[in-house]
């Protein structure tokens, strides 16, 4: 595919942001991205927003025009895209397509979720709408429970250890120490993970990403227009997206996420890259097992080797293929609709050399975003 430039990025702090409303979050991230791009609001042709459940979290559907209005961007087309936790990644892809279609030249893509306005109980109910509400949630299944069953089976088939799962969380918390936007700035140990309360055996509290408010934003432009604004854009060179059964029980395998594999293959093919060429990756670690499934499905490690690779430091900063340098969903936080956009923001910062103390040396990066337990996956390849 033709490449599309990322010319600006912006984030809010991630966390429990009691003072900030939904629209404030977006406006803050959007203003930063537009400033970073050095463009004016009048340069923007269209807006895409990834958001999982404004309808339930804040009783507000139709958030696209709400956001366009509060950001002073009306009357441009504003479109919300949703695929649960993959909403942000899908919004990025729609932004890319909008530019490749020739219909727009400069597109703002944001992701935003305001999760802490609800009680934890109602937040959990809303997150369960990412799974099959009739045949999973109704039966008593929870979202952590689905990943727990994947973890149990992965341990059974490949000998992945409980400690290896914990090491994903430990690594990502370590990385988040150097990310000022991250929700958590606290080092944790394998012992602490293993001593944290069980949520859904074998997963414990410290295997799970938190409930988070936050927004992330990027400004995309056609390669031609990008030259007006910057001499050093980062390019999206590949995009891939795939669907699978929403319910875990309807998939061929629960230890290999076929949507991740298929999205990865499409993205690699469009970019003309192979997994071995990826030098930094943000992947969907909503649960620790998620990161292991991600790096296997993306071909960054061999199938069944995700736990071992983590244990041996291959995915740490300084390792063969640093994964989740931002802290990942686990430690940076997981405002579901914003996550896929925030992943792209991190990869852009890494490729620009602006990642501060968590900087790695990379020319080719990857962002991988999953909806639900794997019903949707979307992958982008970015290059400088």
């Amino acid at each position, binding site marked *: 595919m033709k490449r599309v430039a990322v010319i600006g990025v912006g984030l809010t702090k991630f966390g429990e942001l009691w003072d900030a409303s939904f629209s404030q979050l977006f406006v803050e991230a959007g203003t930063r991205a537009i400033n970073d791009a050095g463009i004016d609001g009048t340069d923007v042709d269209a807006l895409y927003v990834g958001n999982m459940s404004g309808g339930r979290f804040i009783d507000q559907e139709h958030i696209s025009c709400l956001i366009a209005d509060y950001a002073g961007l009306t009357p441009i087309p504003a479109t919300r895209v949703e695929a649960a936790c993959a909403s942000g990644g899908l919004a990025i892809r729609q932004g890319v397509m909008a530019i490749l279609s020739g219909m727009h030249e400069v597109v703002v893509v944001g992701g935003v979720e305001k999760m802490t306005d609800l009680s934890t109980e109602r937040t959990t*109910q809303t997150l369960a709408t990412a799974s099959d*509400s009739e045949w999973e949630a*109704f039966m*008593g299944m*929870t979202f952590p429970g689905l990943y*727990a069953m994947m973890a149990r*089976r992965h341990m*059974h088939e490949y000998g992945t250890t409980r400690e290896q799962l914990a090491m994903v969380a430990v690594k990502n918390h370590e990385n988040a120490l150097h990310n000022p936007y991250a929700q958590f700035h606290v080092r944790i140990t394998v012992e602490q993970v293993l001593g944290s309360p069980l*949520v859904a055996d074998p997963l414990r509290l410290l295997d799970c990403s938190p409930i988070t408010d936050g927004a992330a934003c990027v400004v995309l432009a056609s390669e031609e227009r990008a030259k007006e604004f910057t001499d050093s854009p980062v390019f999206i060179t590949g995009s891939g997206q795939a669907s699978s059964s929403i319910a875990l029980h309807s998939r061929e395998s629960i230890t290999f996420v076929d949507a991740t594999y298929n999205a990865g293959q499409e993205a690699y093919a469009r970019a003309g890259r192979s997994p071995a060429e990826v030098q930094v990756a943000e992947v969907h670690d909503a649960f620790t097992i998620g990161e292991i499934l991600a790096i296997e499905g993306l071909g960054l490690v061999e199938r069944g080797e995700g736990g071992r690779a983590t244990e041996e430091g291959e995915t740490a900063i300084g390792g063969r293929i640093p994964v989740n340098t931002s802290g990942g969903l686990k430690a940076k936080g997981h405002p579901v609709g914003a996550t896929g956009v925030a992943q792209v923001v991190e990869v852009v910062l890494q490729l620009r050399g602006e990642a501060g103390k968590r900087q790695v040396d990379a020319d080719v990066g990857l962002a991988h975003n999953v909806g639900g337990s794997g019903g949707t996956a979307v992958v982008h390849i970015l290059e400088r």
Partner: protein
Amino acid sequence: MMSVPRFWRNTKARYRMIGRRCRRCGQVYFPPRNLCRRCRRRGELEEVQLSGRGEVYSFTVIRTPPVGFERSAPYVMALVKLEEGPMVTAQLADVEPEEVRIGMKVRSVFRKIQEDGEAGLIYYGFKFVPVEGEHDVQGE
């Protein structure tokens, strides 16, 4: 918190484990579907009574229960691979969490699934219980 019409549309499956089988390719679907995902519009689905027998493919113990399941927690949820092929998500009953193993043989039973405190409704459906010893399995 499922609306009543949604629940009732599936009572055959929820109460009696009636699934669907494609006449063309033989694939069995449970939960039931209206289109064979292999044959699509060339397929033809008929109802099929499932045996309710299967084995545990994976499982977890739910410690932080969703609304409607507060009184059951902790409880075991499993992916059960049915004899006829499909896999289903269901609760395991009459078993201690520490006794559950991948590969354990189970059979379906009819039980209360959840209560909707707000609406005062009780929903019934299938759960699975361990098959007691090899003898029972062969004897049935």
